[in-house]
């Protein structure tokens, strides 16, 4: 079962998207915070000519809270409990935004590819969480081997959260691909040494 998380509202680059998480009242089943947690893999649905054109596959690497009320220290005409009745639009302006970096794509036939996608998502493109089967399929190359070709894209982002993101991804993959745990462990140790031990020295 797939879980809808939100919709694309903005992009910073060709692969760096901002998704607004569905708020209260927008869906019957509200996404849980664990669905859009740091390091979760998501699919951004692409819409083509009258139908689905596959999806971008990305990972959540950042979270932002949007609150227009922040900084408005003046008196309120109506208490918060009554705002839902009198000014519901005002409340809907608070939002949770998540940053998604696209690491690959899913073709129309369902097969997955890693790398920078050729297509870009549209505004309002729906975003859903990837389940474990899809996650496994995304990480296998054509020969059925574990593949992390997107790592170079992540490491080139110059974002302080990237090392931790990689560690989180690798830990998740170790549980999904236990037979490849030695290769993953080498990479984990390498990332951990460079991000934890070396900076501390």
């Amino acid at each position: 079962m797939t879980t809808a998380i939100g919709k694309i509202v903005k992009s910073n680059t060709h692969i760096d998207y901002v998704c607004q998480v569905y708020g209260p009242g927008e869906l019957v089943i509200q996404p849980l915070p664990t669905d859009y947690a740091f390091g979760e893999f998501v699919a951004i649905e692409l819409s083509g000519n009258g139908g689905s054109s596959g999806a971008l596959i990305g990972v959540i690497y950042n979270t932002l809270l949007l609150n227009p009320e922040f900084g408005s220290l003046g008196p309120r005409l109506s208490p918060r409990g009554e705002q839902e009745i009198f000014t519901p639009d005002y409340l809907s302006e608070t939002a949770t935004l998540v940053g998604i970096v696209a690491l690959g794509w899913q073709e129309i036939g369902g097969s997955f590819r890693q790398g920078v996608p050729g297509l870009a998502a549209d505004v309002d493109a729906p975003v859903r969480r990837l389940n474990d089967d899809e996650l496994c399929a995304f990480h296998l190359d054509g020969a059925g081997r574990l593949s992390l070709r997107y790592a170079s894209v992540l490491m080139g982002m110059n974002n302080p959260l990237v090392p931790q993101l990689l560690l989180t991804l690798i830990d998740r993959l170790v549980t999904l691909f236990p037979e490849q745990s030695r290769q993953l462990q080498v990479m984990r140790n390498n990332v951990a040494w460079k991000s934890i031990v070396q900076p501390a020295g």
Partner: protein
Amino acid sequence: MTHQTGIGTVKGPGETPHEYTFIAPDPERRVKHGEFVYYAAVVDGVEKEILGRVTGREPVRIFPDSFMADPAVPPDTVAALLGYDSDARELFQITVTVLGFYDEILKDFVNPRVPPAGGAPVFIAEDKMLTSVLSRGRKGERGSAYIGDLLSRGPGAVPVALNVKGFTSTHLAIIASTGSGKSYLAGVLLEELMMPYNRAAVLIIDPHGEYDTLQQMQNLPEFREGNYKPGVRIFRPDDLRVRISSLTLGDLRYLLPNLSEKMHYQLGRAYTFAQRTWGEDKYTLEQLKQAVRETAEGKRGAEEEFEDDPTTGALIWRLGASLGGGKIFNDFENLELAELFRPGMATIVQLNEVDRREQQVIAATLLRRVYQARVDTEKGKASRGDRNFVPFPVFCLLEEAHNYAPANADAVSSEVLKTILSEGRKFGVSVGLISQRPGKLDSDVLSQCMTQCIMRITNPIDQNRIAESVESVGRDLLMELPSLSKGQVIVTGASVNTPVMLKVRTRYTEHGGQDIDAPELWRKWFEGKGLAEQRDGALFAEKKLNRDEDGELWA
């Protein structure tokens, strides 16, 4: 071909064409300096194991210095504190010098001359593989001398056996500073030579009298097989005899002190005269003196007194002083070669308490005689029953070899040693030189020894001499020399397939070259009869002793 789990992964070529580097975490510290590793490569369509020796090790990933600020806090706990809790902590770059694959036909290593592929796994060479490829001999087999075990492995894991044929044809040198175990190693080597599977004919020139413990070989079961048991014969300084007529002109000139030009000339004439008159090797000291008189300049008549001639007088006086006084130089007796050499017998010629120059002459005479005998025997000039018939190869071990072939001085024994070193191979005469000062040893002599056993050397002059003279010792092994411990030896040259570092095996016989334990002996003197004897033997005071006001005794 099945392999064990790799110890590391090839990084790429090293600085020189025969080096490569690999990366290893090596948490168990198995990749030691001098350790043997291999990678698999296809050579001429066949997969070969390309052996190499570890020559360098440098860290490529180590904990930052600041993690080591408190000696009580291990750096890995600091890393764990920060979230790095993996066991993979350190990484090393290991430099390997390629030896090559062992070619069974050539009986040597062949370098494939192609560096390994990057990312190829590197393995620690198995004990069994090393045992078969490092040594030219096999422990306990004919023609082999098991002298110790590979240093980088456990005791007995990789026995190293020298090829006896190698060093008994192209000579041997044992070089080590005092106290590093060179006499012990020589003892091990001699034990192996006298084993039932070798039964060598050995002569040992022993200037310190420290090899007499080898006599124990005669009674040890390890050395017996069927009717065979090794013989050990010791010639103490009192037993040594050198017939004066067996000395060459060079020996005489060397033994007689401070000869003038004129004396040199006259001695030469007298020597020729003696040989011509009484026959080679058939004259006495008195006859030699007579020859000096006969050959004096301006000889006038037999009845006249010639000792007025200062040269004649001085020569005769010198002959008498140098050759007439001691027991060693003798008119008739000589150590016969048949007494000295026999297969399965080690003859120890002890030269302690013998003057340095006499030692050199004795060694030179013995070596010259045995060499000449072997030449004559090989060429068919000597036959059974002749005094110089030696129908088997011989091996002569010289302790303190720098005394017999010094670097910057002329010794009478240098020439014969050089002759044996260059020509002895053809006639089955080989030497083993033992020296603690290779810097003082003639470099030609050292470089002619094709098997070298090098132990701890700290003196830089000696290290340089080894580097000059011993081609097969690489820079990496030379750097190991000061750090070797007692009983550890680098063996290189013709008797092994590649230079190896090993720990010398335990001797079956006791070691005779141990130092005197002075504090222990002093203490024993008090516990034993020494003190009582001194009291009993003390002289009675003849006069009453008084003390002055300062407490000093005065009579």
